[in-house]
């Protein structure tokens, strides 16, 4: 082997190693580094919310040039908490990171990984810019707020007006009417409901709605006062099974994306999904924007309050060990200021958390309907899989719902399995 070539290669690779290993710090002695961790790639993503976040960071870096500098750490949603936990374990908790309210946030509040933010929220009237104090409900522990919500997504039923008209179906307000509409749509040769059981949380969201509408008291079940095996949950499971005859044939394997696309392309009449799906469906087929209507998930007679909506918010938390909490808070403000919130509504298709004025005509047509549903809602609840005792419990719930759908288990057996899981993990 040519020795010269080897030595050149060696020195080249060493130089490359040095470059890769040493961060660019030239002339940046006074600049304070803020790390910000997120679950999607800022540049590659086509999700408008992610793109908006990237713009917020850019604005922040430009405005605070010479003072603060934000370095994003991004992963995929799938690996997010693993990577975050690895950083926490290594004592390198990111200064600011995104976290889902619910058991995930609890995991960081309990061991004191995240700092309470009330002091910062009270200062300069920051908290007053938010639409109500209620937006902080899921982020509050013992009266202290540990994370700042950035947006709200509400899960609704989207329907294709053209197909409904063609099939002679009415927009349903009760479960019976929903079945009736589905039957008519099926008769007309369309898929009544498009859903993903391949991506389990989509099916689980429908199951969550059915449980809530049946009047299931989740808090009582989590606390151990009630069992998962009860008439209300089983009724919900049976309705899930009943509805599954109206799903698209390929539901078992379809991803979330496939399911949304079937709706966007006009193959299916109803899509039950979070409001983030608006941007997605409009990207697939701009024509859908005009044809798409929105309705609140139908009521179940003799069940629970039919006005409740599933809502989910992205929230940012600040590390308790951050060397620069002021900078971290300044950064979060760039996600809740008017520009960012306006973007959230107009482009991102999510409900803003502040009282920002925005142009409904610019926003996707469906957003106005979603906000209508949301403002008429009598209350909100989280995704079932994010509202149980732990994230593992949520995963167990998801899987059992898929088992009902695949007819591997009867609803009784499935909810018994969740109950058994609670018992085995010591929550009973």
């Amino acid at each position, binding site marked *: 082997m040519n020795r010269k070539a080897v030595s050149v290669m060696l020195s080249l690779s060493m130089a490359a190693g040095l470059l890769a290993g040493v961060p660019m710090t030239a002339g940046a002695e006074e600049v304070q580094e803020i790390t910000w961790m997120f679950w999607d790639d800022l540049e590659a993503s086509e999700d408008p919310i992610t793109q908006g976040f990237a713009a917020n960071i850019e604005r922040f870096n430009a405005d605070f040039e010479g003072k603060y500098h934000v370095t994003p750490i991004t992963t995929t949603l799938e*690996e997010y908490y*693993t990577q975050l936990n690895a950083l926490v374990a290594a004592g390198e908790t990111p200064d600011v990171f995104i976290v889902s309210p619910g058991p995930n946030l609890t995991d960081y509040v*309990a061991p004191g990984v995240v700092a309470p933010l009330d002091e910062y929220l009270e200062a300069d009237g920051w908290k007053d810019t938010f639409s109500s104090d209620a937006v902080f409900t899921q982020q509050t522990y013992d009266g202290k707020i540990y994370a700042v919500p950035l947006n709200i997504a509400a899960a609704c039923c989207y329907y294709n007006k053209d197909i409904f008209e063609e099939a002679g179906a009415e927009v349903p307000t009760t479960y019976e009417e929903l079945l009736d509409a589905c039957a008519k749509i099926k008769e007309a040769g369309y898929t009544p409901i498009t859903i993903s059981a*391949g991506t389990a949380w989509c099916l689980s969201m429908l199951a969550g709605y059915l449980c809530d509408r049946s009047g299931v008291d989740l808090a009582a079940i989590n606390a151990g006062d009630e069992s998962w095996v009860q008439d209300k949950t089983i009724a919900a499971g049976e309705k899930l099974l009943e509805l599954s005859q109206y799903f698209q044939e*390929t539901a*078992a*394997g379809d991803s979330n994306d496939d399911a949304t696309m079937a709706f966007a392309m006009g193959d299916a009449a109803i899509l039950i999904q979070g409001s983030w799906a608006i941007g997605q469906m409009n990207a697939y087929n701009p024509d859908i924007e005009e044809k798409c209507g929105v309705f609140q998930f139908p009521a179940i007679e003799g069940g629970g309050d039919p006005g409740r909506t599933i809502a989910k918010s992205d929230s940012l938390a600040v590390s308790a060990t951050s060397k620069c909490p002021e900078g971290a808070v300044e950064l979060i403000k760039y996600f809740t200021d008017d520009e960012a919130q306006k973007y959230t509504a107009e482009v991102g298709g999510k409900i803003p958390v502040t009282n920002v004025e925005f142009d409904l005509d610019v926003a996707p047509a469906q957003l106005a309907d979603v906000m209508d549903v949301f403002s008429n809602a009598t209350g909100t609840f989280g995704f079932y899989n994010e509202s149980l005792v732990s994230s593992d419990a949520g995963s167990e719930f998801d899987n059992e719902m898929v088992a009902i759908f695949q007819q591997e288990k009867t609803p009784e057996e499935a909810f018994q399995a969740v109950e058994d899981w609670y018992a085995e993990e010591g929550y009973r």
Partner: protein
Amino acid sequence: MDKLLRDKKAIILFVAPALILFTVVLFIPIGTSFYYALCDYDKKTMTYHFIGLGNFIRLFKDKTMFIAFKNSMFFLVFSCVSQLIFGLLFAALLTNITKGRNLFKNVIYLPCVLSSAALGLLWAFLFHAKVGINNLLGAWGLPQPAWLYSTSGFITLPMWVIAFVALWQYVGQSMMLYMAQISGINKSLYEASYIDGATKKQAFRYITLPLVKPMIGTAMSLNAIGSLKFFDLIYSMLGDKTENLKMDVLATYLYRTGFSSKGGNHYGRASAIGVILVALCLIATAVINKIFKTENYEM
């Protein structure tokens, strides 16, 4: 000369880097892995508590573990058998032709050097529920099978699909090994047999097969370990859908138990799966060697 080759200092200098790396990056972590396998990892406090065989008992009762084990065993058996048959067939046929032999063997070996992640994406698209092959079948009015999402049967359709994709990708490896062995067989053996009136079939049965046998052991061990490690293809074809489609193999289950946001971070239980995986690798290799390495012909 002898003195030079016995130079202790040189020997240590030559071997030390490799052995140190092996010890630090492989054998100590294996030990740690065995220890973790006996521990419960507490996500909240990020500490390990010794719980004895608790993880194994739990896995033994776990239905996903059963599915993963079943699927891994299926891939193991399928890959060993199919690679033996097709690898040997390709090799035997290729040694019978001269023109184009190199081209054929190089093309068949090609997928072995390509990224499974990339090829998996390709096949996932081809076997997609609506686009891909089903698009063609639909256009011809044929039924559209649920290639990648059927969950019925003990061995589900997606298992067969992925097993065949794996065969397509890796059969070149076995073929190459068998070809090398066959082309090493002395030509005079065949000539002698033909003079004695043997047919080609007989020559294959009584000369090629026995002489290739030691290589079957080697190739099969490689297949067995490869199929127990099976991860890339299944991950890139099914992503996070493996669990609900009952398509987990040991490697994907380990990955999810250890690292997924959904039901992950159980380092103890994931290590236990890892330990089971190592045990299976060692057992499979031992069994295969026992079967195929018993007799060795002088070539």
